[in-house]
């Protein structure tokens, strides 16, 4: 009798799974696989296939031999980390302000942080051109003082930072809300100053959320095309970032070159994905470790996973 019961339990969910007739299941699964294949797997594989179609030697020459491509890679490696750094500062400051203080216009600020998600990147780029371009409001003044923003590195950083603005803040706000102020208050009562509280208490608690935001922010910053396209003026060897370079090479019918750069961007995307999966598993494991001790898992982890 007990044996029967033990066996019955695991069988139950399986049977429910099998309730759908074959006629429904097979087409559904096939449709799913087909969509993923057509939209994701084939294009991604094709990028690498095209890039390497003329052999590894050509692939390497396409990347390293072309000075303009080299410069584009370098530029992306400057612009993206700079934007990420700026957004770490902004994200932490914004999340801190929004979750630790009550002030009029607080909800408005939260909404405003999301604005770059809603605005088309091209429009965002255009806004900066209209502000800082030669015909823009500050253009003449900037020109007189020898400051170049549009069609130069500062413009690229500005546009990229704008487009990626919400990523870090969006990750931190729910996290810091969930953690609450208890630990910070405790640190204060123990004699810690503002910076000590931040470095010793707040930052360790939000570090995974912050890292997650940084990964997403970085991926978006490297791949940004629209806003950067408008502000860069796409001057080869000067203001072309990797996505712009891909497009330019493609326009010049240099398919292997274009796909070589594209394959690098795709690799970065895959790396981002791996980092994201690793981070999710890590937080999940930590949560499970907490639960295993028969105690409530650290609240933060739960919320983290919900927000992912």
């Amino acid at each position, binding site marked *: 009798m007990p044996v029967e019961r033990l066996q019955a339990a695991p069988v139950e969910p399986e049977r429910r799974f099998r309730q759908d007739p074959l006629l429904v299941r097979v087409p559904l699964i096939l449709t799913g696989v087909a969509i993923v294949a057509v939209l994701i797997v084939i294009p991604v594989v094709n990028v690498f296939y095209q890039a390497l179609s003329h052999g590894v030697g050509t692939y390497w020459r396409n990347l390293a031999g072309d000075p303009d491509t080299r410069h584009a890679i370098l530029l992306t490696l400057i612009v993206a980390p700079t934007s990420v750094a700026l957004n770490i500062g902004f994200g932490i400051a914004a999340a801190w302000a929004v979750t630790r203080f009550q002030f009029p216009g607080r909800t408005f600020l939260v909404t405003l942080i999301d604005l770059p998600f809603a605005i088309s990147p091209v429009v965002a780029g255009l806004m900066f051109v209209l502000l800082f371009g030669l015909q823009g409001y500050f253009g003449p003044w900037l020109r007189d003082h020898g400051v170049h923003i549009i069609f130069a590195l500062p413009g690229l950083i500005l546009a990229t930072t704008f487009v990626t603005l919400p990523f870090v803040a969006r990750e931190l706000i729910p996290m810091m809300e969930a953690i609450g102020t*208890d630990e910070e208050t405790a640190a204060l*009562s123990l004699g810690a100053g503002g910076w000590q509280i931040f470095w010793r*208490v707040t930052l360790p608690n939000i570090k995974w959320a912050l890292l997650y935001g940084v990964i997403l922010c970085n991926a978006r910053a490297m791949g940004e095309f629209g806003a950067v396209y408008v502000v860069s003026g796409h001057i080869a060897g000067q203001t072309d970032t990797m996505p712009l370079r891909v497009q330019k090479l493609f326009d010049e019918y240099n398919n292997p070159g274009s796909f070589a750069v594209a394959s690098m961007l795709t690799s970065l995307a895959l790396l981002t994905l791996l980092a994201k999966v690793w981070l999710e598993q890590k937080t999940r494991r930590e949560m499970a470790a907490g639960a295993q001790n028969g105690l409530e898992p650290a609240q933060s982890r739960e919320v983290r996973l919900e927000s992912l």
Partner: protein
Amino acid sequence: MSIAVKNVVKRFGNFVALDDVSLDVPHGSLLALLGPSGSGKTTLLRIIAGLERADQGSVLYHDEDVTRRSARDRNVGFVFQHYALFRHMTVFENVAFGLRVRRAPKSRIDARVRELLHLVRLDGFGGRYPPQLSGGQRQRVALARALAVEPAVLLLDEPFGALDAKVRQELRQWLRRFHDEIKVTTIFVTHDQEEAFEVADRVVVMHNGRIEQHGTPQEVFDHPANPFVMDFLGNVNVFQGRIQNGKIVVGGIEMAYPEYPHGESRAATAYIRPHELDIDRSPVDTSSLRAKVIQVNPNGSVAKVRLESEESELELHVEINLERYAELGLRPGDLVHVAPRRFRVFFPEDYAI
């Protein structure tokens, strides 16, 4: 260090959390702030700690005005209701935190943390993380952390609120002994009157942002200042009646009340605790009430008897000791006589509650 709170007012929007509260806490005492939720007890504790700022009034530490001083500089040990342990730090680091931010030398930190972990009976737990501890252990880590900086005052917000009954009982007695050992002025907040009376040397009963009574547990329990305190400190039978010429008439019985010799009749309320009522098979005198036994519940050291008065259909709660209970052999449905040994009278118009 003694603490004085002088005429403190605190509002949250339209809600008055503290309404002109003054309080003196003598050096080395263990004081309980007791009251229902929303009575302002936690707000008062946080104002004493400097975690909340009073709108008016002042807080003095040993005659020194600290009203404007930040919690950071008050040298107060605060134990939070949910402990607020640093979840990413080990127990050792949690306890060491206050010393680390003061840049104490490493050798001193090690020695002090070890000493404190021993004091709270958590030797060998230094390497654990807070989620790996039970509620009672976390509570003690929080206490050790608060004590690490040698605070002049120890403040605890509902220290046993989140623990189960058995652990709570143990920790209460432990806190009492612990205080006798370290002698630091301690204030704790609780809504549990039993806890306050068992642990504290002084009890402050709060209600609606005011202090209703302040005294030793004995004083407060035996001489409640008003109906609220009476009611809050445990079960009580309430009788509405009238008083005149040194006599009070409630629920069909008459009792002597020489404190009111006036001829003018006034509405009065008599409060009688369950253990202040006696049950008899036969009437004792005019001050006994005929009642029917509804339910008998011998529970631990006393038998709790629920009765209904014949005349007024008033429900009565009586506690008698087990010997008396065995002697009487009470069963539901029995008709008995109930007589008060003691009672307290309050005039309703004096206390609009």
